[in-house]
């Protein structure tokens, strides 16, 4: 038997297991997925926990529930990959040989990368919402909020779900308004970018919303350190911003095991071909989702589109055919803007977010780059779709792997 090993049973790894178990010849290929964590989190839901919209139960399910029959689950930590020997060394001392390896080990926050972030202030007046622990601790802190200076801070790009910090900011504004504490709260949004978002078209719309909602946007803020004792965040060019409550998106990095394996870049992300998803270093190693260094968004929708391409390319690789450069950087993201409204954006490597209707031209029902109630309903409905369709690899009607230009107001531009 030949061995195909998937590292990581998060969004991307689980989708690949579900796709490949249906496509590969069971007489010839054994599929194994390695993950030591018990819980599969619906990570887009973390955003809603601080405001009490979702509870922990809404975003947690047992990981094994989504691993299909026919795929062996190895419940162990990954020590390192030995690419020259084609094997994975596990933390329990066992080794797993592979013919093909798929890396889906994701990304995580690393607050320790910023001086002063961890320490006395952590989860007292400095919070993240990218972990279940951070999101629930922040919920408890917001319950007692009476007013003061709320600072939302993006430390370094790239991050998982690049729209989440802005969504959090807009949702916090709405939440505090509903709680009656908005007038007593100053809101500041600090970013190392020069604009509100990574895509210019979107920055114009969202940056305008920040202004309208009297949220102070501080651009080009490259954080050097946090002075937790004096509740100040300090940039490399020596600007200081005081806070009463700091909600930070710490540096995001790939898994440490990629560094140990010599497969990662400066942030432990795996250098990967941006169209075929083959790793740059080894022909029989592929990477998907947040674990890659691709210049696409680190988001579940992106992993979903990549999974279609990678499933095709794994079959091509096995058959000795040339790989299909099928991934176009397609991303599709809802952006919650508070007051039960949301935006929807659709973009790829070359085309910036534009106006139009989605997924059906003209009909929609979703409106691109517009703030609507139906977009918000779409975001909420997506949780059901995630658990019941997306992870299981069930196709979604009307949603194509490559970005469709039909029904969109295309203004030819090069994206990032």
């Amino acid at each position, binding site marked *: 038997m030949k061995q195909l090993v998937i590292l990581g049973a998060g969004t991307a790894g689980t989708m690949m297991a579900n796709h490949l178990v249906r496509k590969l010849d069971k007489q010839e290929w054994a599929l194994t997925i390695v993950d030591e964590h018990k819980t599969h989190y619906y990570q887009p839901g973390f955003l809603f926990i601080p405001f009490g919209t979702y509870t922990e139960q809404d975003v947690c399910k047992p990981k094994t529930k989504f691993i299909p029959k026919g795929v062996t689950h190895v419940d162990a930590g990954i020590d390192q990959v030995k690419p020259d020997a084609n094997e994975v060394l596990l933390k329990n001392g066992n080794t797993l040989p592979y013919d093909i390896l798929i890396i889906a080990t994701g990304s995580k926050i690393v607050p320790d990368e910023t001086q002063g972030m961890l320490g006395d202030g952590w989860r007292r007046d400095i919070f993240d919402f990218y972990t279940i622990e951070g999101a629930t601790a922040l919920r408890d802190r917001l319950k007692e909020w009476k007013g003061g200076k709320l600072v939302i801070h993006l430390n370094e790009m790239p991050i998982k779900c690049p729209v989440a910090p802005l969504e959090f900011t807009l949702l916090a504004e709405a939440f505090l308004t509903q709680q009656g504490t908005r007038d007593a709260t100053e809101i500041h949004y600090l970013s190392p970018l020069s604009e509100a978002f990574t895509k210019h078209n979107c920055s114009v719309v969202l940056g305008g919303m920040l202004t309208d909602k009297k949220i102070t946007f501080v651009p*080009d803020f490259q954080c050097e350190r946090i002075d937790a004792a004096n509740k100040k965040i300090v940039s490399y060019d020596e600007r200081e911003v005081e806070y009463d409550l700091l909600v930070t998106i710490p540096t995001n990095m790939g898994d440490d095991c990629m560094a140990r394996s010599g497969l990662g870049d400066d942030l432990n992300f795996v250098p990967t071909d941006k169209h075929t998803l083959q790793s740059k270093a080894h022909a029989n190693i592929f990477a998907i989702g947040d674990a890659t260094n691709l210049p696409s968004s680190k988001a579940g929708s992106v992993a979903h589109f990549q999974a279609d391409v990678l499933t095709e390319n794994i079959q091509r690789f096995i058959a000795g055919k040339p790989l299909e450069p099928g991934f176009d950087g397609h991303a599709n993201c809802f952006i919650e803007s508070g007051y039960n409204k949301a935006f929807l954006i659709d973009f790829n490597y070359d085309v910036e977010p534009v106006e139009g209707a989605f997924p059906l031209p003209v009909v929609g029902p979703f409106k691109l780059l517009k703030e609507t109630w139906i977009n918000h309903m779409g975001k909420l409905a997506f949780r059901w779709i995630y658990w019941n369709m997306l992870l299981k690899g069930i196709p979604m009607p009307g949603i194509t792997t490559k970005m469709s230009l039909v029904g969109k107001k295309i203004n030819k531009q090069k994206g990032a």
Partner: protein
Amino acid sequence: MPTADIAGVTVDVNEEGYLTDPSQWTKPVGEAIAAELGIAPMTEGHWKLIDFLQKDYAAQGQMPTIRRVKNAGGIPIKELYELYPGGPLKKASKIAGLPKPASCV
């Protein structure tokens, strides 16, 4: 494609004034762009970053991040901000005749 006359040389530039062909770059061109950005004179420390960016871009095919400048280039981030106040990589890449760093995704 727009062009610009910089230090007596005609170079291809984009709408933001970044050179589109790194091979048209010369040291005097770099100095002239630096002066326009208010960075003069260019010291050894300034050139060290320009040199790293050009070599790394040639080797990697993409602009390094500020983290990579620190790790692989050995230049502390604090120093970058002292040398190129306001936006070290945006300014230095323009002076180096390289693309503006993508703000990522």
